[in-house]
């Protein structure tokens, strides 16, 4: 029989890289990640259903399950699912909040309500998730319909990659938005995960 890790983390594919880095940094050998597709963010009503299916099929193999999602546009429906199983998730409304730490994120949002946020993942997959996801490849004339109320793009960076910064700048230009760069690293997310995922806490 194969040995399984005692803790299952059901995670959004969009934060997988960061989770793996945090796991390695903390030597969390007791954790197994299982990711759901990042594309679910374009249809957030499906997130609770997919998380539930994963819990149903996998939870019995683990001592503890943790959900590495924020509310992520589910309007409380994800909470409803995890509450049913006594499982916890990352606090906050969405990944921008836990990447930036919630105080900073609130300040950014209050400073300019028309802020369009990017993370490393979104910069890397901008074409697939933003351009194709919004149908701008097929209907480029819809760009102003989607983006006319935005004033600036805020790149909340997890790494200090010059390549990603250059890409983000181009993406801001493409959308006709001002560009702001904020580097946070993995710190804010790591702080939120530690109480949940350190071995003593499991």
């Amino acid at each position, binding site marked *: 029989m194969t040995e399984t890790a005692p803790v299952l983390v059901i995670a959004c594919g969009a934060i997988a890289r960061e989770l793996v880095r945090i796991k390695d940094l903390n030597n969390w050998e007791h954790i197994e990640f299982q990711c759901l597709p990042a594309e679910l963010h374009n249809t*957030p*009503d499906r997130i609770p259903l997919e998380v539930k299916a994963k819990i149903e099929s996998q939870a019995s193999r683990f001592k503890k399950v943790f959900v590495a999602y924020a*509310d*992520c*546009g*589910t*309007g*409380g*429906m994800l909470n409803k699912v995890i509450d049913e199983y006594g499982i916890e998730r990352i606090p906050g*409304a*969405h990944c921008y909040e836990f990447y930036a730490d919630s105080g900073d994120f609130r300040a950014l*949002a209050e400073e300019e*309500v*028309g802020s369009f946020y990017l993370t490393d993942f979104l910069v890397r997959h901008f074409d697939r998730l933003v351009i194709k996801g*919004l*149908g*701008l490849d*097929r*209907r480029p004339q*819809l760009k102003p*319909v*989607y983006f006319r*109320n*935005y004033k600036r793009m805020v790149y909340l960076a997890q790494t200090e990659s010059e390549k990603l910064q250059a890409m983000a700048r181009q993406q801001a230009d493409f959308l006709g938005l001002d560009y702001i760069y904020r580097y946070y690293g993995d710190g804010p997310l790591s702080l939120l995960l530690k109480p949940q995922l350190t071995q003593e806490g499991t």
Partner: protein
Amino acid sequence: MTEEYGNEKYDDEEIILAELLDDELVEQMHDDLYDGLAEEVAEGTQILLDRGWSATKVLEEALVAGMTIVGVDFRDGILFVPEVLMSASSMKAGMALLKPILSQTGARPTGTMVVGTVKGDIHDIGKNLVGMMMEGAGFEVIDLGINVEAATYIDAIEEHKANILGMSALLTTTMPYMKVVIDAMKEKGIRDDYIVLVGGAPLNDEFGEAIGADAYCRDAATVVEVAKELLALAS
């Protein structure tokens, strides 16, 4: 030129809208709305008007009926947001020709609705679709835009003697503001004077009920149905 798909052959010769009979033209306009062809929808609208159709008849039978098909297919997951937006801009092209005529007829609107996206939120695609569909259904629509404060909603429903207040939010962080607005209406003692409808991707029936709205509406076509239903009950 003829293209072949399987065993069937389809002509892709250009259709001359002006040569179609009325019912064929209306059917073609439904197809053009579905395909987001704004110029063709505007042309079809003008042809029907030139043939003596009333603006109301063109609106109801050609445009609203066509958008209803789009709405149903969106609800069923056959069409997606980009396609619906293209259809909406086609309907707008037709509406632009009808609006001046409709306003001249002086017909009383079915009702008046104030709509807006709540404070802290700038997403207006759904709200704009609602405004357009409600106008198509004969409502006067006062659109307050985005990032709307409670006091602005309340001033507008009072000033325009609205029957319905519609609030939209796309973010989990902004949807609770709908309750702030409803609570402010309660404090003023005017909550029960209005039908309050709420919508937006992260919302659901349970949330609508919890904040004291009259209904949560999952899409623009549902807003029209629910608005008519609740107005009939209220009168």
